[in-house]
């Protein structure tokens, strides 16, 4: 059983601090996805858990035992690398047996474990091939086999699907999920792809420039993003952001305004997801159409908010038609508005349920 606890974790390279006070507890059996844009520090975090990077300050504990100073070999972890990192001169079988041989397991047991893992991953046919004779997807499975065979406390995945083509990626994603559920091993999975993150993770940790923006379930992140960054990162197409001012319980939205019940005054950012908009003649979001994306299942309307040059996207079900220059009005679905503080990016709570369109010319 393995819980992982990160306490006040910080990492610096010389004078530059790249991870700031990261905290989190990962429960036994969870698949935690650490997601964020390039350079946010997610790989560094993973490598610190693996023992491949030193900890500048803070603690990493597995099952209550602090492991900061332990070598990677002593941490009972297994890692799947982005470029698979298979030993090129060894066969698949030897690749998988390597770690077990080092630990001195008897030959018969090693053979059994390798066979079992190969069966789960359906790579039994390639056991005697060398890595260069395998395709990308096959190599990925061998890399996972090498991890499984060790029966570790923790699995670490460092963007394992980035080098695969799109279709394979979708397929492997599900396989990894099923595998992890079946084995029940606590796992940390790093990716920059938010779709991957949403489908795989029990809980997501969103990192941005070394800070944890939010740590919660995918739905939490979707429905109640803690910061504007998370709101814009999760969900595709991305959330619309409108810079506005709150005054007297009203927010200006282009040529219209929205009523709010919030104590907030001053600059704010209003957020509304494209898929949470309904076309309504007196909706407050008036969009001048620039382009349509016909996806079949839905239509993306790209345009600008009337009276401004702020870009705006709305998603409507089915096939819709419109011409460039048309103005379509949208209303938000109930409870779908988000408000963020302009300066800090943090979520402002408050009821934004009422939404009136003030008369034009206000």
């Amino acid at each position, binding site marked *: 059983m393995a819980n992982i606890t990160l306490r006040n974790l910080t990492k610096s390279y010389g004078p530059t601090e790249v991870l700031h006070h990261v905290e989190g507890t990962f429960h036994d059996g969870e698949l935690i996805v650490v997601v964020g844009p390039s350079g946010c520090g997610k790989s560094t975090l993973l490598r610190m858990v693996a023992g*491949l990077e*030193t900890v500048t300050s803070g603690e990493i504990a597995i099952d209550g035992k602090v492991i900061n100073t332990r*070598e*990677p070999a002593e941490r009972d972890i297994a890692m799947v690398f982005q470029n698979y990192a298979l030993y090129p001169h060894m066969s698949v079988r030897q690749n998988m047996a390597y770690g077990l041989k080092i630990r001195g397991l008897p030959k018969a047991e090693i053979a059994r474990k390798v066979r079992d893992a190969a069966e789960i991953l359906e790579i039994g046919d390639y056991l005697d091939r060398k890595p260069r004779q395998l395709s990308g997807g096959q190599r990925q499975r061998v890399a996972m086999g090498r991890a499984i065979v060790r029966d570790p406390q923790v699995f670490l995945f460092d963007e394992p699907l980035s080098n695969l083509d799109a279709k394979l990626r979708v397929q492997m994603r599900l396989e990894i999920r099923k595998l992890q559920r079946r084995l029940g091993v606590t796992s940390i999975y790093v990716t920059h792809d938010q779709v991957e993150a949403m489908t795989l993770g029990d809980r997501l940790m969103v990192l941005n420039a070394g800070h944890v923006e939010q740590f919660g379930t995918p739905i939490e992140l979707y429905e109640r993003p803690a910061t504007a960054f998370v709101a814009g990162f999760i969900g595709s197409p991305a959330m619309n952001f409108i810079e506005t001012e709150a005054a007297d319980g009203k927010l200006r939205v282009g040529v219209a305004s929205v009523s709010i019940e919030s104590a907030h005054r001053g600059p704010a950012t209003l957020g509304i997801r494209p898929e949470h908009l309904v076309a309504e003649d007196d909706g407050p979001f008036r969009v001048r159409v620039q382009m349509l994306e016909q996806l079949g299942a839905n239509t993306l309307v790209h345009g600008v908010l009337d009276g401004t040059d702020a870009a705006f996207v709305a998603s409507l079900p089915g096939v819709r038609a419109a011409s460039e220059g048309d103005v379509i009005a949208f209303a938000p679905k109930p409870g779908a508005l988000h408000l963020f503080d302009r300066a800090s990016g943090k979520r402002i709570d408050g009821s934004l349920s009422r939404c009136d369109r003030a008369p034009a010319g206000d």
Partner: protein
Amino acid sequence: MVENRRYLDLATHIVLLLGIAIVALPIWITFVAATHDAVRMTQVPLPLLPGSHFLDNLKETLFGSGLSGTETAPVWRMLLNSLVMALSIAIGKIAISIISAFAIVYFRFPFRMGFFWMIFITLMLPVEVRIVPTFEVVSQLGLLNSYAGLSIPLIASATATFMFRQVFLTIPDEMLESARVDGAGPMRFFFDILLPLSRTNIAALFVILFIYGWNQYLWPLLITTDNSMTTIVISIKQMLEAAEQSPQWNVIMMTALLGMLPPVVVVVTMQKLFVKGLTETDK
């Protein structure tokens, strides 16, 4: 790399420094020997720290009449010979190899492959393997004891040609096509486009070939009987012989230092080019 064990980092530096010390030891001893006077250099044990006679020894070695008891030419003359030989070999090799490679890669003409294989064969014939007959040819041509005789027989080896061929093969076809569209003939293409693109390779090769030329031993030994034509590298042999009777180790070691200085300076200052040259010619 992976471990954070401090002791491993310490061990690394210790081992490397030890290695450098062992590698540098002979040079240090040589340098020390070149800084003492002749008398001190006959007393056992020989010094481990430098003395104060560096400049004296330098002057005597360069301009003096060589070792007493020998008839060697002054060392400055030998340095000159070495320089001329090394430069001739390096420049000569590069010049004829690059135009050969150009012809073989960019022209279709009868016997093209024949010439290629002929050049390839020279890879397998280092001078040590054909010394007697080559000597005869050179002497028949009257090239003994001359700069030409020192350098020309060593110019036509295949390594440089092969390297240039490799480089030319990787240059995109579009270069030639656009040059032709612009109206360039073959030689103009060669000088205006190919040559500039090959600049770093030429420089890298020059470093390697200069060292090769400077350090030649067997060949200059055979064809120079006239003392004024000896190179510094083979004069060491004569000095070592003389050392049997009257050891003047300070002069000998100073000569050795002078003999190794130019190539070492070239390697150290042009390290990147040197490494590039080594790794690309020895494939």
